[in-house]
């Protein structure tokens, strides 16, 4: 780290649990963020600011006016632009030290396998079951940690999965893959700062996983209801009938 970097990250290096060693570890880390919308915005911005060395950003969508109420990585000037390009611009302005790789097309299984090979953590900020199940399966196959977040209306959920550990549950243990879709933000609505809360929890879980510190939400599901300000943490178990876990 040069002097500018030492100063840039000084408030984080001050934390005894991070220190210089931890900061250097962050700078050498590579994180895949899938979805650059409401959750992907705070996740990518906080991880870039915190000095995660290499971010791989995946989204196939374009910035729409209805996104700007909550997807704070994009601004009015980027309307109509590819979200990954808009994100890259914002993150590079925030922290030019960060290396950024863009994935502009829909994530195909074959492609996912390649990306997974040298990624330290995957952050699921997507908005549909199909992507969530595909990412989960790829993480279980490659033994890569998955930090999953979701938000809708006033409700948010965060869970962390460590598929490399023997009896750890996976996302598919939590939800059945029965082709049914749940509501989307465009149908049910979403509170702007809710994605900030959920995404920020995801980003802090990523940093803990990368540095192997603290108590992570591994094997737990955190549920947040912004309308009443209430939290709950549920303990998860591996489902003995889970088709993804049984292939491990």
């Amino acid at each position: 780290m040069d002097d500018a970097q030492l100063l840039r990250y000084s408030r984080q290096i001050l934390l005894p649990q991070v220190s210089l060693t931890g900061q250097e570890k962050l700078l050498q880390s590579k994180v895949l963020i899938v979805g650059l919308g409401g959750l992907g915005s705070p996740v990518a911005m906080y991880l870039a600011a915190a000095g995660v060395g290499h971010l791989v950003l995946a989204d196939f969508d374009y910035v729409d006016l209805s996104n700007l109420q909550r997807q704070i990585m994009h601004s009015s000037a980027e309307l109509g632009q590819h979200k990954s390009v808009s994100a890259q611009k914002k993150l590079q302005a925030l922290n030019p030290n960060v290396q950024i790789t863009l994935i502009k097309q829909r994530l195909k299984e074959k492609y996912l396998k390649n990306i997974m090979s040298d990624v330290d953590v995957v952050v699921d900020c997507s908005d549909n079951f199909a992507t969530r199940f595909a990412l989960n399966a790829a993480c279980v196959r490659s033994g890569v940690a998955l930090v999953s977040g979701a938000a809708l209306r006033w409700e948010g959920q965060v869970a962390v999965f460590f598929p490399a550990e023997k009896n750890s549950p996976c996302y598919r243990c939590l939800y059945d893959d029965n082709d049914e879709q749940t509501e989307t933000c465009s149908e049910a609505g979403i509170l702007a700062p809710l994605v900030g809360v959920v995404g920020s929890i995801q980003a802090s879980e990523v940093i803990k996983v990368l540095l192997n510190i603290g108590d992570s939400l591994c094997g737990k599901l955190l549920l947040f209801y912004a309308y009443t300000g209430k939290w709950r943490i549920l303990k998860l178990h591996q489902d003995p009938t889970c088709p993804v876990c049984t292939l491990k």
Partner: protein
Amino acid sequence: MAITIKFFASLREQVGKSEVQIELSDSLTVGEVWAQVCDNSPLPIHILMAVNKEYSKQDTRVQDGDEVAFFPPVTGG
């Protein structure tokens, strides 16, 4: 035996209550508890269930004093 049932987030409005206590003469599964409290309406798809803050499935058996909780699924981002 007595159990407490809780409905979280948007399920509170959907079901019209946030917490119910019921007396049972015999042991029920989580799915049967839902049916009893929600006028036999089918269990919503992808609903999350927990007994005493541990994730459970609809066939999990409920014991005296248990807290059964239901949560809506969330996939948006």
